[in-house]
């Protein structure tokens, strides 16, 4: 039990320190790396409380995919330089009020969540579905999500689909003059329409690409 507590405190310490470092560190790429460390230690905490499926999915989705794309964006755009320019510029900026508003909302949400913690025992009683403790996490999650909550599940899938199509529509631009490779065309080409023998008259050229 002591070993369990020690490991728990190690992971939570890493999580908190790296969460602070995300906001504090000067280099944006470093803060993304700290964010990744944060994700990893949080998924370790999930595994420690026995939610191994959630922890692994967190690793696969957030660390394996989302953070990679995040890192991509931060590396490609020179965010650090922009940030410094933005901080140093003396002109009034419209970003600060928006940022303040968002952070105030998040702050109050966190307070509500912590306040709601008081009602946690009542919440556990009000869960309508019986929790079968014989099954593994993965099995019981699947049997709940795909049966009782199938509509909500599909609805969230729809939301993701809309977001995906939106992203494609926003970034897609049709460019003219792009030469694309068509495998089918390439393979179905034969000697007959590839090569043509022409008798060339003296002092007169031939027209190709006719």
């Amino acid at each position, binding site marked *: 039990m002591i070993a369990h507590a020690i490991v728990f405190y190690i992971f939570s310490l890493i999580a908190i320190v790296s969460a602070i470092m995300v906001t504090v560190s000067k280099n944006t790429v470093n803060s993304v790396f700290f964010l990744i460390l944060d994700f990893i230690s949080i998924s370790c905490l999930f595994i420690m409380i026995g939610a191994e499926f959630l922890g*692994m999915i967190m690793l696969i989705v957030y660390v394996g995919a989302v953070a990679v794309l995040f890192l991509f964006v931060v590396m490609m755009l020179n965010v650090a330089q922009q940030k410094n320019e933005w901080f140093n510029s003396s002109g009034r900026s419209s970003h600060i009020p928006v940022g303040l508003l968002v952070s105030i909302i998040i702050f109050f949400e966190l307070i509500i969540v912590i306040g709601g913690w008081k009602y946690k025992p009542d919440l556990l009683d009000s869960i309508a579905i019986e929790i079968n403790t014989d099954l593994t996490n993965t099995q019981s999650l699947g049997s709940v999500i795909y049966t009782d909550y199938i509509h909500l599940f599909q609805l969230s899938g729809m939301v993701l689909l809309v977001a995906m199509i939106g992203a494609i529509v926003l970034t897609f631009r049709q460019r003219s003059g792009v030469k694309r490779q068509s495998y089918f065309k390439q393979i179905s080409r034969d000697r007959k329409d590839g090569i043509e023998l022409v008798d060339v008259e003296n002092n007169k050229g031939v027209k190709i690409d006719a």
Partner: protein
Amino acid sequence: MAELFIFFEQIYRILFLLIPVLVSVAMIVWLDRRVWAFVQKRRGPNVVGPFGLFQTLADALKYIFKEIIIPASSNKVIFILAPIVTMTLALIAWAVIPFSETFVLADINVGILYLFAVSSLGVYGIIMGGWASNSKYPFLGAIRSAAQMVSYEVSIGVIIINVLLCVGSLNLSDIVLAQKNLWFVIPLFPMFIIFFISALAETNRPPFDLPEAEAELVAGYQTEYSGMMYAMFWLGEYANILLMCAMGSILFLGGWLSPIDLFPFNVIPAPIWLILKILFLFILFALIKAIVPRYRYDQLMKLGWKIFLPFSLIYVVLTASFLMYFDLLPGN
């Protein structure tokens, strides 16, 4: 006292797994070069030791005594961390590989997810190395490989779902035991082919070795690395390849099971069968390296997203419908 004993026992078991893995990584590099040479009608490494078996050890010794050069403009912490991350991630995944019914270091419920998660983390070693070098070619190589690995992970994930539909459990031992009567390579043969090709792309092996395409990017993300740090990237890469071969043999080739449960076959101990299957897949990897030319980058992306992903998704639907119709779904 008892806890201390358990601690040392675990360390003993970890070493008992890790040291053979490291030695076999060294041997597999030799095998790779020999197969490559064989296809090209050369001899390959044959000087150091019998059949040149100690070539990799000699190479490793050479790397150890070389100077480690850290570029002045690099981000030094991340530069040093990158090969360590690659090597560590390649090794920790071996914890869940079952070598027989009892011989497995960590028999966890979500074994296949763990393998998938670790292999998806593998991209960080490459991105970190490429970015921290602060140089054009490594950065281009890192970006290429990140895009490539993220794309092919998606199709590997869907292929894993195919197998899981037939098993009904995420535990690797359960996956192997479900293949007692029929290896999944037979009903899911197209998926095996796609898994094999995706594994090539996931480990940056030819014909998908665009991150280190020497004609375009010198050596990709490893360009600035030298000495032992380069060797760690190199060993990590081969450990990852072995891991992918192990994953393929567990998912499709029946893991430690013998092909036929008859006298001469079932006497051979289970780990030997797994090792033979891993070797078989690895020789296929090596042959592909020798006989197939490198892909172009847009072809690679097209293959991943427009061909493999839709095809494996359709196969998921087919597998699920088949199992449902013939009432073969596991867990009932």
